[in-house]
């Protein structure tokens, strides 16, 4: 499992804006973006997740990571350990459906 929670905790951001995945070859790079309520900056944290590896969920730090991680799982196949939404259908059609 790729550990990210400790490093992210050290950033001490007020909010998690988004989690973006970019796939190159067999490897995904996850970009986490954070912001503060009183500062204008955006902080970026990135981590590479090789094929077949799981990433650590950060729900324990930012609850809104639940859906953002689930979206990455759904579209890029990166699983997050500790996220109950990860692996469940979010936006894509149900099996056999056309939504």
């Amino acid at each position: 499992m790729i550990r990210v929670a400790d490093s992210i905790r050290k950033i001490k951001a007020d909010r998690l804006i988004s989690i973006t995945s970019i796939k190159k070859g067999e490897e995904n790079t996850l970009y986490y973006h954070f912001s503060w309520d009183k500062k204008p900056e955006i902080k970026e944290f990135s981590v590479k997740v090789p094929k077949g590896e799981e990433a650590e969920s950060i729900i324990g730090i930012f609850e809104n990571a639940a859906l953002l991680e689930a979206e990455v799982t759904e579209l890029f196949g990166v699983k997050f350990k500790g996220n109950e939404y990860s692996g469940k259908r979010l936006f894509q059609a149900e099996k056999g459906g056309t939504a």
Partner: protein
Amino acid sequence: MHERIFPVGPQHPALKEPLFLKLHVDGSYIAKAEFNLGYAHRGVEKCAEGYLLDSALHAVQRTCGICSQCHSMAFLNAVEPMTKVKVADKVYLQRLIIAELERIHSHLLWGGVMAHEIGLETLFMYYWRERENILDVFDELTGNRVHHSPDLVGTMKRSFGKKELDMVLEKLGAIEHEVRELREVMRTHNVITSRFKKHGNITNKMARQLGLVGPVARASGVNYDVRRHAPYMAYGMKELKVRPVLRTEGDSWARTMVRCDEIFESMRLVRKACELIDPNEDIPKKQNISVGEAFGLGRSEAPRGENFHFVRVENSRIARLKLRTPTLANVIAYSRIMEGEDITDVPVILMSLDPCISCMERVAVIRKGRQEIWTSHELFEGKKHD
């Protein structure tokens, strides 16, 4: 007492967009609420890939029919710094006018829908009558009532002259009194206060934990507004500093009042921007833009909250576009605030969050070999693959 499952949606009179709410009810009280998404997803992120910046902007502006300018501004905040193009102040001011008019239009639209949900059909019509004035302004300024699309990378398609600016000011003057009266109705009407107050509570702590944005967060005392905390474009001018509207109650009524009051703040900003614009100044023509390899982040404050765009460009074309819309940030609160409420309050609580489902479900994966899926080229050209 037996727990039963009560389905709401995806097609339901209380929902204007498709969302499936699975309510576990004990009598008429909601014990647990789950939501199911994915009924309106399109391909904005995927279809923008491989296109030039101006073409991608065309798609991005169509992510949402209500806040299309705010998506455009977030995208431009991400890509304009990489192009090194100097954007004129008049362009920034014009973009601000459209964005703030869009906020007024969005909040008026929402007020009407909210009135409709509680059965006040006349109030709904009054709200939408005033909204119609703003759509007329969009028509005059941009040629489009809904998807305005006035922007280009580095500039805009039209320059606003005296005639356009006078129309903006005239229409704002025409609706202000009526909108104040509508606000008073929302503030004092017995039906509204009894159904909105102390329902759908979101505490300040919960709003922070869940990373909520926009009027939903500001109604719970979270002072977070991108226009003020990370000023972009004309919001950085000292005359156009945004005064955030905050409340602390955190219930459906507080969210209603935040939106009602934000309309007047937007009117102030539009009037000030009209004063600052030189109607005789021309804006730069469209430029050919070339970007090697770069990535950018852009934010904007849409009527529903913070929009976030992550853009990666390779050889002047989009390699990856990621949009985080405000409803995706707020949707996680749905299941929390429904719990413990009565089933009859569901429409009010849901609408008090002002969800924009189609805006949220912007993602689609294009698969080959499935008849119903379009390629990005077909989406852009409007032709179905045979």
